[in-house]
């Protein structure tokens, strides 16, 4: 009897120990496939998936495979919360790839308490202060820096004697409002005249009222802090109403597919691109080209790819040092210095006092229906800009 008990105990131990060796690393992905931001959320999630498949086929994390759990939360906060609980308690994920502003904000306190690193596609600047959100990371230029970069670029190319007049158009949601105070402060610092401010909803079908208001104030430049659909509405209506304003906008406001929606109204629209453009040169892009079989991948896809790539780099170091835990991942993420994303973004640096990945802004403009890169604005990592 005793021997039987002993052998059962041994077998049980063997069973328990087996998964510990060469065990998969479980990563959760709270994605928006079908919700309000699904137009960019789906390619982003596909990018994450594609990089996971790529790394699993190419050695994994020091030989261990990544098990990616992708679930759609349709941009609904309660569903994101319950998915988070499921990932944490049932699936025991070590880190999460998240998505929008609402859910990232709602989970900010919890991921800090549960010590689960959370890589989001919400690039709100106030996620970059580790004193307030120690477990939040992202891999693109934050919204405030993006707006500052645009303003700097415009000011640098401003030839006239008078002050350039600028206006801000944004949706009345967290994503839209986040960079506005920072943008206004920097616009005044650079010597802009702020002439107007309008709200255009993310789901707006027309923006005539707001644009007629703007037309009276006649700004030289106007910021669009929306997503693709609302941006195309603004650009089309502005063309219809004959505004002479030059529009510029945020990272989610346009991509390769925008000209299809705007039908020519996008000409001259200046906007921030977070990652390299499809078809660029560089080792990173060569891999993407190979994986995609030469089919166009929009920039949100590439941003998803990069986000997963950075996470995997951190996982590799954490795994090597046998610290594949939430705090371990945070520790090694914060030790990243000038991580080379093979030319897909600027080199990424996090520290334990600053989670801004980089402060350079890549700008592109539409010319003849194509995205043309206009240059990179390198902004200083000013301390008073952290979290603002």
């Amino acid at each position, binding site marked *: 009897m005793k021997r039987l008990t002993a052998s059962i105990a041994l077998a049980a131990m063997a069973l328990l120990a087996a998964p510990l060796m060469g065990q998969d690393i479980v990563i959760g992905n709270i994605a928006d*496939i*079908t919700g309000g931001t699904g137009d960019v959320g*789906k390619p982003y*999630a*596909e990018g994450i*998936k594609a990089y996971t498949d790529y790394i699993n086929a190419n050695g994994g994390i020091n030989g261990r495979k990544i098990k990616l*759990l*992708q*679930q*759609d*939360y*349709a941009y*609904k*906060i*309660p*569903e994101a*919360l*319950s*998915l988070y*609980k*499921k990932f*944490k*308690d*049932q699936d025991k994920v070590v880190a999460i790839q998240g998505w929008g502003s*609402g859910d990232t*904000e*709602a*989970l*900010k*306190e*919890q991921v800090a*308490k549960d010590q689960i690193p959370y890589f989001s596609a919400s690039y709100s600047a*106030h996620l970059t202060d580790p004193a307030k959100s120690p477990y939040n990371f992202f891999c693109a230029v934050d919204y405030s820096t993006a707006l500052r970069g645009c303003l700097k670029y415009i000011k640098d190319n401003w030839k006239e004697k008078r002050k350039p007049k600028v206006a801000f158009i944004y949706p*009345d*949601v*967290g994503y*839209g*409002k*986040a960079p506005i105070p920072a943008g206004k402060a920097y616009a005044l610092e650079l010597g802009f005249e702020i002439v107007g401010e309008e709200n255009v909803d993310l789901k707006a079908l027309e923006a005539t009222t707001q644009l007629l208001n703007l037309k009276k104030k006649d700004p030289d430049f106007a910021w669009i802090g929306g997503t693709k659909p609302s941006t195309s509405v603004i650009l089309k209506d502005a063309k219809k109403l004959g505004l002479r304003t030059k529009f510029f906008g945020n990272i989610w406001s346009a991509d390769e597919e925008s000209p299809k929606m705007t039908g020519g109204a996008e000409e001259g629209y200046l906007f921030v691109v977070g990652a390299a453009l499809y078809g660029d040169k560089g080792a990173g892009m060569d891999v993407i080209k190979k994986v995609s079989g030469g089919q166009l991948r929009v920039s949100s896809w590439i941003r998803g790819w990069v986000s997963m790539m950075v996470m995997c780099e951190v996982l590799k170091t954490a795994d090597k040092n046998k610290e594949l835990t939430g705090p371990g991942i945070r520790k090694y993420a914060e030790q990243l210095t000038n991580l080379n994303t093979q030319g897909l973004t600027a080199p990424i640096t996090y520290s334990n006092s600053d989670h801004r990945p980089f402060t350079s802004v890549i700008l592109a403009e539409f010319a003849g229906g194509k995205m043309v890169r206009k240059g990179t604005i390198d902004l200083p990592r000013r301390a008073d800009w952290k979290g603002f």
Partner: protein
Amino acid sequence: MSVAHCGDFRQTYKDDMLVLRTRFIRIAVGAFVLLLYLSPLFSSNYVTSTMTTIAIAVIGALGINVVTGFTGQISLGQGAFMGVGAFACSYFMRVVHMPFWLAMPMAGLTSAAVGMIFGLPSARLKGLYLAIATLAAQFILQYVFMHLDAVTGGSNGIPSPPPEFGTFAFDGDRSKYYLTITVAIAAVIFTTNLLRSRSGRAFIAVRDHHLSAEIMGVNLFKYRLLSFAVSAFYAGIAGSLWGMYTGYISAEHFTITESINYLAMIIIGGLGSVLGSIFGAIFMTLLPQVLTVGTGALADIFPKIGFLIMSFKDGVFGIIVILFLIFEPDGLAHRWRMIKTYWKLYPFSY
């Protein structure tokens, strides 16, 4: 063996006042409550926190059932009233430094006051017109949430501190569950008794025929307003608990979608039924989660079309709701009664 009579034979006043009529029902309900309290001991945190969201939904659904199910006034503002409660509770705790135990009822009262203001149109409006008036409440409040930065944190939202009892903080899944389920049970008991009270009967009279009710001496305006207040009070309590559950309150949650969700809960569960509110809340909370897990599992099996399967989720959700309305127009509570009746007379149903 305690048996229910094959008919409605109440012989004493005490008999008439009983909520749980037979010993069997009393034992069954007692066992169920006991099970609710013991369940966190043997279920995972995920299950526990899902049950917490169900309990919150039950409170909110009871609230909207009071105004819509019992008094017959369609309200499309339940989500916004929840938001009022959530923000008020957090404000009372952070700024006024009230303990949660005081802040939660205060938030409920705040929400009730707001509910009464937006219930005022019910004096003149009925049916669809009233629905549109309450829809305005939803949008006005949403606007307030976004712009009253000092209280709501604007679009960034605000943290909601955990309740404390002495040195014990309710910040774990289990402690949050116990707190929520206790409040939910209290809400169920209160609603059941409310319906048997003078006010409850007045509510039902207003719903069934407002003219007759008025002739009987029911003050229509008073009771309509009261029902809005009670409903918003429940919503405020549910909102406070929601804030406690998430630890962070964001205006993006309390939208028209949330209001319609609550309306759907009581339609699916059963209008004018306490049990219906509970069934509806369970159904509407679990269905999306079951679908998420289901489609996720399917997507794992067929990785090539994973995203396609996930996009079916909302469609399947809609189809299930429609099928329910076709085949269960009186709600889940009605089906439950049918099942009970069947077994009551089993196997001699005639």
